[in-house]
């Protein structure tokens, strides 16, 4: 019987079994950023330990970097954190993509961009959206700070094995429907806890035909569906993307790498713990109405009404979410006024996102009174957008064009919602207070839908606003 990619990668990276029964797993690639690493380096120092394989850890800064003026954090705590990662990387000989390197950005954008993210590898990062890298056929997951310490000190960590659920999507997404809508749709279908204990294998011809960026958008939100990691089997699209990247193998090593990478793909007769089938054509532009990523509805649906359900728990969930969101139950989500529009984050802050959105935004204007910001996921993304004139399209439309960082995805930097502002956001989390104001409200959607909301000043169907046939 065949094996899944997950099993093959797991087996190849198993160091041994620990006394508690967990696996000691080798982490081939370790990514770090300024928020979850300083404490780990601190623990290392306390224990008198060194970084075991300094070449296998890569660092950048993203969460707290101001996007208006990258190198001048007004906040002394932010400055202290940036200094800490700089000196930690210096002291322990770790590669660090600093602001001046021209390669800084959101860690999950930088890894793929540099060719650090590779098929058949294990990747860990002290950040829950590490699953993004699974788009390349890597097993990639978020870890806590103590585990960051473990990986620094030993290049391994203790982990329990996961089950594998194959999510098979067939057909073509309809015009105006994007990978973001698919990922929101999957989470709505399986629930925010549906993936607990699982790795998600995303497969089917929809994924075969997806670009790497689209695959990353879906894998990025595996964790919002409860899955520790998500992946797509590597194929020609993967190899094409990686070719010629700074850390990609070259020459004879490239050919060897391709053969090796291919061998990691799930076998045709691999067995899965569960299989789910989805038809891509059934999906409409999807937005969230509540405070959990599985609170999704299509743009043509009404906001749920707790009066229509008998289930006491479901009632409570709807009531709590709507009380927080201050949204009217049972009325169309389309037409709800917004205050802020945010395009960026590790879900949708890549070149393709800005290119696609710019196509529609050209010649349009952001509605009066709406604060709209566009934040490239990396310095390289920013430069490329600027080369293509995409930044102009955004700024002429009334978006503020910013520098690379996590920005308003989580608001550990100056970009924050104020009061109960409601934000159309291309990010991945709509938890209470996520975007910086404890009563701020987030509505998740695709970048093109954010642009439509910005132009209309309210939640809108991008297909109507931009005449998408």
């Amino acid at each position: 019987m065949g094996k899944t990619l997950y099993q093959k990668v797991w087996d190849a990276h198993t160091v041994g079994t620990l006394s508690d029964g967990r696996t000691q797993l080798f982490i081939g690639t370790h990514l770090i950023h300024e928020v979850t690493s300083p404490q780990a380096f601190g623990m290392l120092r306390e224990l008198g330990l060194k970084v075991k394989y300094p070449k296998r850890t890569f660092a950048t800064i993203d969460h707290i970097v101001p996007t208006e003026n990258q190198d001048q954090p007004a906040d002394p705590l932010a400055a202290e954190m940036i200094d800490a990662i700089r000196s930690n990387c210096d002291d322990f000989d770790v590669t660090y993509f600093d602001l001046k390197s021209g390669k800084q950005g959101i860690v999950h954008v930088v890894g793929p961009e540099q060719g650090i993210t590779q098929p058949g590898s294990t990747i860990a990062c002290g950040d829950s959206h590490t699953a993004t890298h699974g788009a390349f056929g890597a097993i990639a997951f978020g870890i806590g700070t103590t585990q960051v310490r473990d990986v620094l000190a030993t290049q391994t960590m203790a982990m329990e094995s996961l089950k594998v659920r194959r999510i098979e999507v067939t057909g073509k997404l309809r015009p105006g429907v994007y990978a973001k809508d698919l990922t929101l749709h999957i989470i709505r279908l399986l629930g925010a806890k549906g993936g607990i204990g699982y790795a998600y294998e995303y497969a089917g011809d929809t994924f075969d035909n997806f670009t790497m960026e689209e695959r990353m958008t879906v894998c990025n939100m595996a964790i919002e569906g409860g899955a520790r990691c998500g992946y797509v089997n590597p194929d020609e699209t993967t190899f094409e993307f990686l070719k010629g990247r700074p850390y990609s193998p070259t020459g004879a090593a490239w050919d060897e790498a391709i053969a090796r990478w291919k061998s990691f793909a799930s076998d045709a007769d691999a067995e899965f713990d569960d299989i789910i089938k989805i038809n891509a054509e059934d999906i409409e532009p999807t937005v969230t109405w509540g405070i959990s990523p599985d609170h999704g509805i299509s743009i043509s649906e009404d906001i749920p009404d707790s009066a229509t359900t008998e289930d006491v728990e479901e009632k409570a969930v709807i009531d709590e979410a709507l009380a927080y969101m201050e949204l009217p139950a049972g009325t169309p989500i389309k037409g709800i006024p917004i205050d802020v529009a945010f395009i960026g984050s590790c879900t949708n802050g890549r070149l393709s996102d800005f290119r696609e959105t710019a196509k529609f935004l050209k010649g349009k204007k952001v509605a009066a009174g709406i604060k709209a910001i566009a934040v490239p996921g990396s310095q390289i993304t920013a430069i490329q957008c600027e080369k293509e004139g995409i930044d102009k399209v955004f700024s002429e439309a009334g978006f503020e064009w910013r520098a690379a960082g996590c920005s308003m995805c989580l608001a550990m930097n100056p970009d924050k919602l104020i009061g109960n502002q409601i934000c159309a956001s291309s990010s991945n989390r709509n938890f209470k207070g996520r975007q910086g104001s404890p009563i701020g409200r987030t509505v998740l959607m695709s970048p093109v839908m954010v642009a439509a909301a910005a132009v209309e000043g309210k939640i809108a169907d991008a297909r109507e606003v931009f005449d998408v046939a």
Partner: protein
Amino acid sequence: MAIAPITHVSGPAVPIPGADIDTDRIIPARFMKCVTFDGLGEYAFYDVRFDPVSGEKTDHPLNDERFKDATILVAGINFGCGSSREHAPQSLAKYGFKGIVAESFAEIFYGNSTTLGLPCVTSSKANIDALKEATAADPTLEVKIDLEAMTVTAGNLSFAVEMPAPARHALLSGKYDPIKELLDNKDQIEATAASLAYVD
């Protein structure tokens, strides 16, 4: 690097209402601007303990004087979902919590807590509700999480709890912080590294 085994934890408990308490709620992101975990305790549940607009204390149980000595936290379903930030269990541990009883936990939070020696056990909704009721009625009630018997007892209330075997074993044997064992397997680590083409 010897660590003492954890066979049980006990103390007064505080019931936290609601399901899906995410890590942003346990410790809002703005308090993660820190280079050590010390001092995180005072920010646990900050945005639900203080009214975001007026800054006044809310009626959150952690503001309730009667629960000020609580060391056991009782919660609902999917506690600790959301971000992988270890700041969340760290802030609870620094606040003074020694154990958590809930209907279920999010996976990363669960793992992070175990590694800190903060046992997280689960039981049915009926049992959890009964425990919440009992502790609300008597905040001084001593709640004991017994990892050997796998029970929670509080006054006349006693019920079975669950915890994945590896985590339980790790706590009972004092190996919940795996660093020593990981380091000990140096030769196997190096052999694995040598077998992986992309690791140089």
